[in-house]
């Protein structure tokens, strides 16, 4: 884990209000795992003050680059989007606990992404394919509309079965990713239960977790929380989890952001 001033190789639009930022980062590229994030300094001179947590969308060890895929939400991400090749991005990481990869290819692998939450799933699918050697069985991606569906083609290159849902029906089915998930389970003929990985807005993750837990499926979710330090020092970012018979707060930036869906108090 270190602090880096990374040269920007490219910054391009990748959908509505969505940007793809490629950074030269040989050390980070080798160090980060899917589901981990970096803490990005977006402002200058206290505006905005805090860093912004952004997941690693891809790490290319050979090229020595990392890619961030992010949506412009407010001031921090708008300033990040204004940076150009030749400039630098100050980041530290890799941070947090990423997704646990499957050991073998026995079970179908389902990746569920909601909106910009699909960003880290790309890195996950690639790593599962490169290191474990299995293909993602089904991607289920949800977005508000066609324009905000991210990286459809990139995912398509990684797996044969892509199912899409949009709130307005402008692409794929009209509805939510969770409906695709429920349909999948209802119609699946596979006797081995799938491994489920999900990232997206909290209400979506909650709905996914409830379905997965009901069917007793292994399910990992990547959660979001308001973060200050990003390294586990300040206790800002807590998530409520089960603790024996009781409950406790743990740090999203340190014990997470990826949690077992059964552990989280939804």
């Amino acid at each position, binding site marked *: *884990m*270190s*602090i880096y001033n990374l040269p920007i190789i490219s910054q391009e639009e990748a959908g509505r209000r969505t940007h793809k930022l490629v950074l030269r980062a040989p050390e980070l590229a080798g160090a980060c795992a899917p589901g981990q994030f970096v803490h990005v*300094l977006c402002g200058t001179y*206290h*505006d*905005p*003050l*805090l*860093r912004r947590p952004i997941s690693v969308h891809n790490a290319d060890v050979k090229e020595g680059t990392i890619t961030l895929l992010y949506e412009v939400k407010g001031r921090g991400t708008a300033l990040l989007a204004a940076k150009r090749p030749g400039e630098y991005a100050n980041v*530290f990481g890799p941070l947090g606990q990423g997704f646990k990869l499957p050991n073998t290819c026995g079970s179908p692998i389902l990746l569920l992404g909601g909106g910009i939450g699909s960003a880290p799933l790309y890195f996950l699918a690639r790593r599962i394919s490169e290191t474990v050697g299995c293909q993602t069985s089904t991607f289920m991606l949800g977005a508000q509309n066609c324009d905000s569906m991210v990286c459809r083609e990139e995912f398509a290159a990684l797996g044969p079965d892509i199912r899409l849902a949009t709130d307005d029906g402008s692409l794929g089915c009209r509805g939510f990713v969770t409906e695709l998930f429920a349909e999948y389970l209802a119609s699946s003929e596979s006797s081995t239960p799938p491994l489920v990985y999900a990232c997206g807005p909290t209400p979506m993750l909650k709905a996914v977790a409830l379905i997965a837990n009901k069917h007793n499926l292994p399910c990992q979710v990547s959660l979001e*929380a*308001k*973060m*200050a*330090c*990003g*390294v*586990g*020092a*300040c*206790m*800002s*970012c*807590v*998530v*409520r989890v089960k603790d024996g018979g009781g409950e*406790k*707060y743990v740090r999203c930036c*340190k014990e997470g952001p990826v949690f077992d869906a059964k552990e989280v108090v939804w």
Partner: protein
Amino acid sequence: MVAENNRLKTEIAGISMKNPVMVASGTFGFGREYADFINIEELGAIVTKGTSLLPWPGNPPDRIAETPAGMLNAIGLQNDGVESLISEKLPWLRQFDVAVIVNVVGKTLDEYAEVARRLDGVPGICGLEINISCPNVKEGCIAFGTDAGMTAAVVGSVKAATKLPVIPKLSPNVTDIAAMAHVCEDSGADAVSLINTLMGTSIDAETRTFRLANITGGLSGPAIKPVALRMVWQAAGAVSIPVIGMGGISCAQDAVEFMLAGASAVQVGTANFINPNAGPKIARGIDDYLARHNFEHVKDIVGAVKSNNL
């Protein structure tokens, strides 16, 4: 190397430090979280997260909200309690050549004294900072820091429970900071530190909700610096024990300003979140300042701000 520099060596209330730059309670965990990033031995001291007798669960999220040049926090002093500090955190910290000050919190007078008693004689602790100023817990804490009688009682009973230097940490949420500093000195405090966070809140107009689950929180960061600087100056003028200054320090120049106002040492808090290396960088920057202005020792700038009338 800052570590070898005699010009920065500082002693406060019997606590020897390589330089006058400490990291503030609650912003640096127990050091471990940052040890991967920086050389924590370049810090003057590490002040731990507030530690209570028994574990505290903390407040529900959201616990923070960003504000212009600042942030509000309502962590609610989530911590694992004094036994975990002694059995897990301190043994790890003892490997390093850096002063450790434990920040102590309690809901009752007895609890403060009990934590102090429990820590007395535990190796690897140089002093106790008594948090009587946290705005985010319902009982104790700030109630002690905003009432002169209770401040005196808590400082007195902690003093009686330990041989370690005792440093009450003052709340800015009072009308007369000089009077509070004075009460601490009279009650036997070895030094005072200030300021803790200023109570505030934040509302999201779009959703018409408070941004913090706790509704109110403590404001920190560059936004509070002028208020903190004024309070440090007033407190330093009122007491003869050392004053440790903090509130919005993010660069060496900020730190020097606090020392000119009368602080013998400074603490860096929120700035660690933006740059984990802020502490060591500020220590080096103070050294540059001393060289530039031909000061022989950092203590020569303490209280050296000139009066405008002269």
